[in-house]
């Protein structure tokens, strides 16, 4: 506990310890013990069924059902001993989903509580812990070997056995542990956000181990290399002598053979700490592997945090966007913002290609042959009696349409040509006008009057300028269907090339 923490913490109740004295204490304790055991084996997430099966396998509870176990798990979640997460397993119906398919995990607090209980019970730790103490113990044994001048009977063998046991434990635990960090499961775990919770504990653990390795491993190496080899030989002799004294059912082997065996075991032990000519020691290897694991974990943790952060930012962006949409009051604006942000629409284009009757870039879309489409009937009537006989040949039909079209174009052009040839005229000079002529004239006058410069350009590439009469004379225009009185404008026409 940090001294500087607020004192309020000293007086708060700790719900996490409720389970130790609750009514169904046995059930709770067994459940959490199971979690703790699994935790030591790096299995963090358990399903209700697994918990139930695990607890029942100890045979310490009678009359316990899966439903009760489920309820107990919920209670432990409430007391913050466990956290729950929806099981990744796929449900295929709403009902199945609702059957609360959760997985549970121990909270860091509870891990500490169980660890304390374990210490209290003085239970040997479960496999897979990297205990620097093992190294310390080994170092102690080696120092004793070095410092004992004479071997009392039995002492050497006892020490040898302790040393070999500790060594095996160190060796196996370390490789188990590192191996377990390399398994797919652990990697998978490292990719989940829950991993962040353990990352610190785990790296702290590994770091301690590395520090232990460096400190004790280094000392070990020094002692093994610097001590007179005779000392070790004497020790091995003492061990073999002790062994010879023991009654054994084995085929009797000679002292030499026994000695060879011990020498071999010893050299493995020494090599583990000092390496040999062409291979670095296992300590170095273990240190490297541990450091690698730390690095990998930090990398994963970083990636998770990144992903999480990125997720957060996307979440924040989507939240911002959602509010933006809510602040709009018409649908057009919403469609626009949607198009700018999601772009969920298809592009649009015209289908079909008309003939090219001209290569001029100045041809108007009105003047090119159209794309002719035969329309399908959309009613039950498929063909009316007396409907236009179909033109047999599309080409012929198009040709006819084209001729008619060009003819129409010609009459229009004629009017314009006549006036352009005149160049300029006053209204009073004009003779009787046709309807199309009136159409053009009035259109131009109207447009010129609307423009400040009294000048316009027509799509046909004419520039038309209008001059108002100086003293307001008026003129009468005669048409096929009547007379129009208007100011006696003067009109100037000029052909300009289109842009």
């Amino acid at each position, binding site marked *: 506990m940090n001294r500087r923490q607020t004192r309020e913490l000293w007086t708060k109740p700790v719900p996490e310890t409720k389970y130790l004295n609750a009514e169904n204490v046995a059930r709770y304790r067994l459940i959490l013990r199971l979690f703790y055991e699994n935790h030591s084996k790096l299995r963090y997430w358990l399903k209700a069924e697994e918990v139930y099966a695990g607890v029942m396998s100890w045979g310490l509870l009678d009359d316990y059902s899966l439903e009760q176990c489920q309820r107990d798990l919920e209670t432990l979640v409430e007391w913050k001993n466990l956290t729950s997460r929806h099981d990744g397993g796929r449900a295929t119906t*709403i009902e199945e989903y609702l059957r609360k398919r959760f997985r549970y995990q121990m909270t860091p607090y509870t891990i500490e509580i169980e660890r304390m209980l374990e210490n209290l019970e003085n239970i040997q730790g479960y496999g897979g812990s990297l205990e620097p103490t093992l190294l310390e113990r080994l170092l102690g044994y080696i120092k004793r070997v070095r410092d004992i001048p004479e071997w009392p009977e039995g002492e050497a063998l006892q020490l040898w056995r302790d040393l070999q046991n500790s060594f095996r434990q160190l060796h196996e635990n370390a490789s188990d542990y590192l191996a377990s960090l390399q398994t797919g499961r652990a990697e998978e775990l490292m990719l989940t956000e829950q991993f962040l919770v353990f990352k610190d504990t785990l790296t702290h653990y590994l770091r301690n181990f590395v520090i232990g390795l460096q400190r004790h491993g280094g000392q070990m190496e020094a002692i093994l290399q610097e001590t007179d080899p005779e000392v070790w030989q004497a020790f091995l002799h003492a061990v073999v002598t002790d062994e010879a004294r023991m009654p054994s059912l084995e085929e009797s082997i000679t002292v030499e053979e026994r000695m060879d065996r011990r020498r071999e075991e010893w050299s493995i032990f020494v090599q583990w700490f000092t390496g040999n000519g062409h291979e670095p020691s296992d300590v170095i290897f273990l240190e490297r592997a541990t450091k690698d694991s730390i690095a990998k974990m930090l990398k994963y943790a970083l990636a998770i945090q990144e992903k999480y952060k990125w997720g957060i930012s996307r979440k924040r962006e989507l939240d911002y966007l959602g509010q933006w949409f809510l602040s709009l009051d018409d649908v057009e604006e919403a469609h626009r913002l949607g198009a700018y942000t999601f772009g969920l*629409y298809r592009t649009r284009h015209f289908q*079909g290609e008309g003939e090219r009757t001209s290569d001029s870039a100045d041809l108007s879309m009105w003047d090119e042959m159209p794309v002719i489409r035969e*329309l*399908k009937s959309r009613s039950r009537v498929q063909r009316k009696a007396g409907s236009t006989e179909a033109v047999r040949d599309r080409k012929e039909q198009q040709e006819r349409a084209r001729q008619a079209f060009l003819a129409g174009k010609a009459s229009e052009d004629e009017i314009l040509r006549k006036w352009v040839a005149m160049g300029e005229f006053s209204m009073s000079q004009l003779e009787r006008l046709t309807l199309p002529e009136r159409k053009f004239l009035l259109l131009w006058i109207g447009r010129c009057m609307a423009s400040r410069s009294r000048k316009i350009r027509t799509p046909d590439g004419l520039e038309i300028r209008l001059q108002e009469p100086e003293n307001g004379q008026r003129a009468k225009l005669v048409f096929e269907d009547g007379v129009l009185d208007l100011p006696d404008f003067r009109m100037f026409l000029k052909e300009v090339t289109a842009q």
Partner: protein
Amino acid sequence: MRRIRKMAGGTQERLRAELQQAAQALLNRPWITKRKDPEMFLLVKSHYEKLRDWFHDHAGFSLIVTRSFAKLEKIPGSWQPWMRIETFHGPRDYALFAYGLWYLEGRGEAEQFLLSEMVDAIREHLLSLDVNLDWTLYEHRLSMARALKKLRELDVLVAVEGEESDWAREGGNHNVLYEASPMARYVLRRFPKDLTAYQSMEELIAPADQLLPAAADPGTGSDVQVRRQKIFRRLIQEPVVYDWQWPDEERRYVQTQRSWLIEQMRNMLNLEGRRFREGLLFTWTDVTGEMELFPTLAGESDLLMLLAGEIRRILHKNPGIFEKDEQGNLLLTRAEFEGILSRSKEYHGDYWSKGHREKTSSLLADELIAHLREWNLGMQEGVHIVKLYPAFMRWNGTYDWKGQAE
């Protein structure tokens, strides 16, 4: 004939056709996934660099390709009313669509949840922002259901059991079991800055003002590039942009660079371009395509083409009868427009769908004018004038069939 050509330009032609196919698929689909469309995905991958560079340089669109999908993030050049999610009725639908994605954010692949959990989370979150959504209100549920349906259409949400429409109709006692898909995070496009840094809509589509090494020929400034991107964005996405619809600078560019523009559009997108007095016109010459095409399958397209033919005949008989403005648009009064429509109905109404036959001419005119607007073929100005744009005259629909109708 065709076969001979194919043999001649074999590989070259095939590669170009592939490139065009991939480009059009990217432009018109939300994305292309390896799982659902492995061939197209491979096509995109094999032309990745070319596609990426072309869209980047010409339109400022970014192409995202991962191991499992490809997505082109397209941006409107000039927003058109048809650039929308058709099924959405208003801002609330869009907001709930965004909050649906918000809820999906950070969920693992195939992670399951219930509709009730999702809508409660959204409601609670919005309550904290003082926005009151009430799932007991039918309108609110409908809005959410439309958003959910769209998410499902996009495959970012999968329904395992149940229907959101039942929930929309009857509420609380219906539920749906959903599954998340990791694609959810790609629905919202990427922006150069964090989205929360944008205050106005127009900032969202501003072309990134930076010179790209690929496009940096001497003598072009970044403003030229921005202009070019704006132009391509429109040409790529819109049916037609008349000269008068471009701002001055852009119009100048379109007029002076037309042959290059036409060439680029043909090579990359298989769109045939042609210069007319009123502007560039691009057409898609195949019968079907990834994009939406005019004439559409809807009856309104038939009627517009019929009308175009009709007006062509009237003009032929009486060339000056309707006024043309200097942009090359034909001006009809609303009465004239409806009159032509009524005459068409007399002649051809028997072939029309029942709905069109029974509409009043005014309502039918409204419907057709809306269709004109959707395709930039015309509009109504004020109360009395119907403007028909030049491209309207590119069609002529007829009921004169060859031989007997089937």
